[in-house]
């Protein structure tokens, strides 16, 4: 190759619109035949300026805004925010509320993992598995709808507690669904570890060693599949996780199969915790009073989202609106590992490896700091930012 000079690289664009992606994002894959030689990602297509938007909303309004960062893990975003704000305000949330938060978080993890499982089966061309997992996922969606009225943004949290209580009928429904799902999960675990055709697409593909996983800063199940001990529920228990300890699931193989096994095994932990919470749900209030103005200060709130560590930085200046909120989502941490892992694999493995980190692009794309080489800080109001966006696209279309 070097003698002939630099060969013109053949690039395949995946996205922003592509059947493999359910959300807009752009990947430029350079290939030599079927082998990937380079991969570049361009983020930002789903940027909505949420972090900026919350700065002009009250603490309560911001909750609903932040919940809409992600359609899959909406609860965990709201929970991370609430935990942070409650910490700033110095408010103690009733134990029943904390337990319900954890319960919903685990239900959300189940639906998120099943969703991911179906999508990655579809990426591998195994549509039957996709249809089956999504059918089973409906059980969880029904539960979430049952006590909150919503399938996606269930809005369980309020500052200082939760909105919805779990009554006996719901507890029975949850127990039934969980025992059904537990049986199904055993079956799925069988499929991903024994189906020869499926293993051909996952075993030994996209291997990430432990040191690579650590250097690339991966989080969540992606890291745990490479045997990295990283799980916020275990390392820094929040909400009611100190009362319901979680067993960390690790795998040392680091390939796609390990990522499947880790996520599916995690589901069993979720089932166990849900049943335990239903058994020992503490009595008491659901909410506690929280001041409208939050004391000045700043805090960090870390929770374990289905995809990994979700990190919130919250700063208050003592008024009724947040000074600054920064959310770092797990996908952005894991994205770089994908770019690294793709190189050397076949084009056919690209969608699988990408799906292996369980990417969520709308989580991913938020505030981008423009550093134009000078320390000139640009501060835009929400209206100005909106106007800037409108003008930008007008200019592009001219």
């Amino acid at each position, binding site marked *: 190759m070097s003698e002939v000079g630099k060969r013109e690289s053949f690039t*395949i*664009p995946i996205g922003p619109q*592509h059947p493999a992606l359910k959300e807009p994002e752009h990947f430029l894959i350079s290939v030599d035949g*079927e082998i990937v030689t380079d991969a570049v990602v361009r983020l930002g297509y789903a940027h909505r300026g949420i972090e900026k938007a919350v700065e002009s909303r009250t603490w309560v309004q911001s909750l609903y805004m932040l919940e809409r960062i992600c359609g899959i893990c909406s609860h965990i975003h709201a929970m991370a925010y609430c935990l942070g704000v409650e910490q700033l305000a110095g408010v103690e949330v009733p134990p029943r509320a904390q337990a319900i938060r954890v319960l919903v978080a685990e239900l959300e993890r189940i639906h998120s993992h099943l969703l991911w499982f179906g999508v990655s089966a579809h*990426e591998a*061309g195994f549509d039957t598995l996709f249809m*089956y997992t999504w*059918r089973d996922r409906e059980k969880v969606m029904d539960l979430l709808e049952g006590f909150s009225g919503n399938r996606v943004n269930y809005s369980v949290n309020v500052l200082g507690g939760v909105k919805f209580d779990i009554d006996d009928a719901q507890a029975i429904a949850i127990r039934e669904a969980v025992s059904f799902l537990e049986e199904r999960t055993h079956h799925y675990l069988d499929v991903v570890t024994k189906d020869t055709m499926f293993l*051909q697409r996952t075993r030994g593909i996209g291997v990430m060693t432990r040191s690579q996983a650590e250097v690339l800063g991966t989080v969540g199940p992606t890291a745990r599949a490479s045997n990295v001990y990283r799980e916020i529920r275990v390392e820094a228990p929040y909400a009611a996780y100190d009362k319901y300890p979680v067993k960390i699931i690790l795998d040392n193989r680091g390939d796609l199969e390990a990522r499947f096994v880790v996520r599916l095994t995690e589901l069993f932990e979720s089932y166990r915790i849900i049943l335990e919470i239903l058994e020992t749900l503490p009595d008491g209030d659901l909410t506690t009073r929280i001041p409208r103005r939050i004391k000045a200060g700043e805090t960090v709130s870390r929770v374990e989202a289905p995809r990994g560590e979700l990190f919130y930085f919250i700063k208050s200046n003592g008024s009724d609106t947040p000074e600054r909120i920064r959310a770092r989502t797990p996908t952005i941490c894991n994205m770089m590992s994908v770019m690294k892992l793709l190189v050397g694999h076949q084009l*056919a493995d690209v969608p699988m490896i990408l799906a292996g980190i369980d990417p969520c692009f709308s989580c991913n794309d938020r505030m981008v700091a423009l550093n134009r080489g000078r320390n000139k800080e640009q501060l835009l109001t929400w209206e100005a930012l909106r106007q800037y966006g409108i003008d930008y696209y007008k200019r592009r279309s001219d």
Partner: protein
Amino acid sequence: MGSTTIKDVLISLTALLIFPGGLFLLLVSLAYEWVDRKLLARMQNRVGPRWFQPMADTIKLLAKEEIVPDAVDASLFIGLPIVALAGVLTAAIYMPFPGLPPIGSFPGDLIVTVFLLSLVTICLGLAGANTLDRFSLVGATRTLTQLFAYEAPFLLALLGPAFVARSWEISEIISYTDGRWLLITQPFGFIVAVIGLIGKLEIPPLDAPEAETEIVAGALTEYSGRGLALFRLAKGVALVLGLTLIAAFYLGGVATPLLFLVKTLALLLVIVGIHALFTRLRIDQTVGLWWKYGTLLVLVQWLGIIIWQGVMI
């Protein structure tokens, strides 16, 4: 003499264009496509399309504007789907479709038929290579790679029955296989032929050439409107003819339309089952499958047939 010629011509034209070839064959292929989609949907816990959906799709596509991209050879772009469809429709002449004796036959028509069925794949590959679209180019490469992988074993598998019938003429082979289930004596050939058909038609799990999660629609990415409709029809017809050929050769013949219906649908059920059960293979795995196992199995069977015939003589 003159009147009989006109009558003959009319009969031939009817046979070619209306029944059993031509129009009737197209309708049957749409019906089979519906059976395929409905069965798959039921296996995947879905509802599936209504009976007229494939026809509605085709009519809609035919009515839509065909966008010819810049930087393609326009005549090739428009001509290839027509050649593909014409090829498979011609192949029908030598087939016992639908359970009737073939309209035409000559010694060696089996080879011609198999070639005509491959024409679809070749046209697909050329259509992909004709455009500058990157998905199409990768799709075309994969289509042609897959063609080289399955073509030899598939042909060898179809020649097995021809070998025992001691003829390469389809009408003679089917008169030999009528009532004889070669599936029992030549099981490897049957398996290879069925999987060969799956590979030929790019049905999952051998659909790497049009893997939508990687390369959108593969070679057909740039096609819209009439070209896409014609390619889809050509594939549908190739499916029906492939099923006919395998049923006639391996499943004890298709002497009557009823037998034809039962046996080809049973075969379709098997293919849909394979589609529903397996994960898509990568293109290197597909090629490996054929050259490591497919060809080997057929050759072993050939050896068996030759030895058996030697013993009998």
